[in-house]
């Protein structure tokens, strides 16, 4: 059997374990789905009148506008949860056993990221379904929905890479869990919940440079207007940038973990 096939099988096996683990533990999936859904419902009902503000983009409803923000919040939490799960594996000694097995190191991280990507996919489908059920239209049609789903899944995997790097570096679930509030800070300081032009300083300026804003606009555009090449390209490039940072940090953290045990 060729080396590539063997590696693919290892990634698949670890990925499936990660997916099963996530969906079997309600405490892992609940914050990723329940909390953003609750906030989506409350923010849509509470701040829905915002769409009549001058300068607000043309949208069918505030729910339609907010779907991308809810997906973004969910995928960021999924990335954090993936990091927590990896840290738990390290604490339990499972990762040590994998390190001593004749499998490539990258497969261990990639397997975990597959679980995070599955959660991102689930979040994208969940929020699109909620939007459709409650009357939001996907202006980009099926193709637009697919673009949004792909971007959310890829972004979840990219953010999961950062979570994995922190988990590998610290090896402690409590540290990764402690980053939970940071997720909210990053999401709030982006255009996830409101048009950047209408935000208040300094959040407005920070949101303009926050990479998450580029991803969220890429997810939002197909939902509220239709696919736009530039916006999608910026989102893809941003995700690739996050992947690159995640890879560098993960490989350095992995080397550190192998050194300290």
């Amino acid at each position, binding site marked *: 059997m060729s080396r590539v096939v063997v590696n693919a099988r290892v990634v698949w096996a670890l990925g499936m374990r990660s997916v099963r683990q996530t969906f079997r533990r309600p405490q892992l999936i609940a914050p990723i789905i329940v909390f953003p859904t609750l906030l989506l419902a409350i923010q849509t*009902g509470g701040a829905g*009148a915002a769409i009549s503000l001058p300068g607000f983009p043309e949208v069918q409803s505030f729910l339609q506008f907010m779907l991308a923000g809810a997906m973004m919040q969910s995928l960021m939490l999924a990335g954090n949860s993936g990091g927590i799960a990896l840290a738990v594996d390290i604490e339990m000694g499972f990762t040590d056993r994998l390190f001593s097995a004749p499998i490539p190191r990258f497969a261990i991280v990639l397997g975990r990221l597959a679980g995070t990507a599955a959660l991102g996919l689930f979040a994208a489908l969940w929020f699109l379904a909620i939007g459709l059920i409650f009357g939001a239209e996907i202006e980009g049609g099926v193709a637009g929905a697919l673009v949004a789903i792909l971007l959310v899944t890829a972004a979840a995997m990219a953010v999961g890479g950062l979570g994995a790097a922190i988990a590998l570096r610290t090896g402690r679930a409590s540290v990764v869990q402690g980053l939970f509030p940071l997720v909210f800070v990053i999401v709030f300081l982006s255009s996830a919940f409101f048009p950047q032009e209408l935000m208040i300083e300094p959040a407005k300026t920070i949101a303009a440079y926050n990479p998450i804003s580029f991803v969220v606009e890429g997810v939002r555009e197909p939902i509220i207007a239709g696919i736009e090449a530039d916006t999608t390209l910026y989102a893809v490039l941003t995700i690739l940038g996050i992947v690159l940072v995640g890879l560098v940090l993960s490989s350095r953290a992995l080397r550190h973990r192998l050194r300290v045990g």
Partner: protein
Amino acid sequence: MEGRLEMPAWRANLATIGALMARAKNELVRVPGAAIPGVLAPTIFFLGLNGVFGALTQLQGFTTSTYESFIIPISMLQGAGFTGAAAGVNLARDYEIGWIDRLLASPAPRWVLLTGTVLAASARAVIPATFVFAIALPLGAQWPGVDGLLVAYLMVVATAAVAACWSSFLALRYKSQSAAPLMQAGMLAAILLTTAYAPLALMQGWLQDVAEVNPLTEVVEATRQGFVGSVTWADTWPGIVAIVGLLAVLALLALREMRRTAR
């Protein structure tokens, strides 16, 4: 020794409540990090919501021109909710390590044990409320006046007591710290399902209906009045009635669970 045996019941009860509060204070002093989530979460929400939804005050129907003034009561109450929920999480932990069993074997009445937990949570709720209030003032929140501040703090400590009763009920029912998300999310949802983001008239459909019947809406409005206008008895008494009603119901539920646990 003899004097202690002859201690009247009310004094013994007060001493027990004081001891339970002192224990909670010791936890805070010894593990200051435990208070951080209760302080951090409302602060992040305050800064985040203000930056994001600040422009909402341009809509007709807002009684204030600064969103900081509108949202600060929510953050103070959120801090109280999280602090009260933490009391339940600690109670569940105490049950898991067997400490509650020893407490229940003592001759102290059940209501005394619950009162100690609840009052400790109320006292702790002052910390996040003061922290977020201190941040809000220089950022542009209106000074609520001494009367407005007093009413706001009264609502904060009372909301923490409500949250502590709710979380104690869940802690004693499920006897596990794994019920923590239910305690925290329950309070968070209850506070957000009010006029948290916008006045009632500007809210949409279902949320408006829910906020109208949610007793915490009266508590939010009572807490908010000094920040967005002046304090009136008409805006205060519904909040007091709502909080007393919630306290009575949830305290009874928590006491019932405590008695069940003892059996």
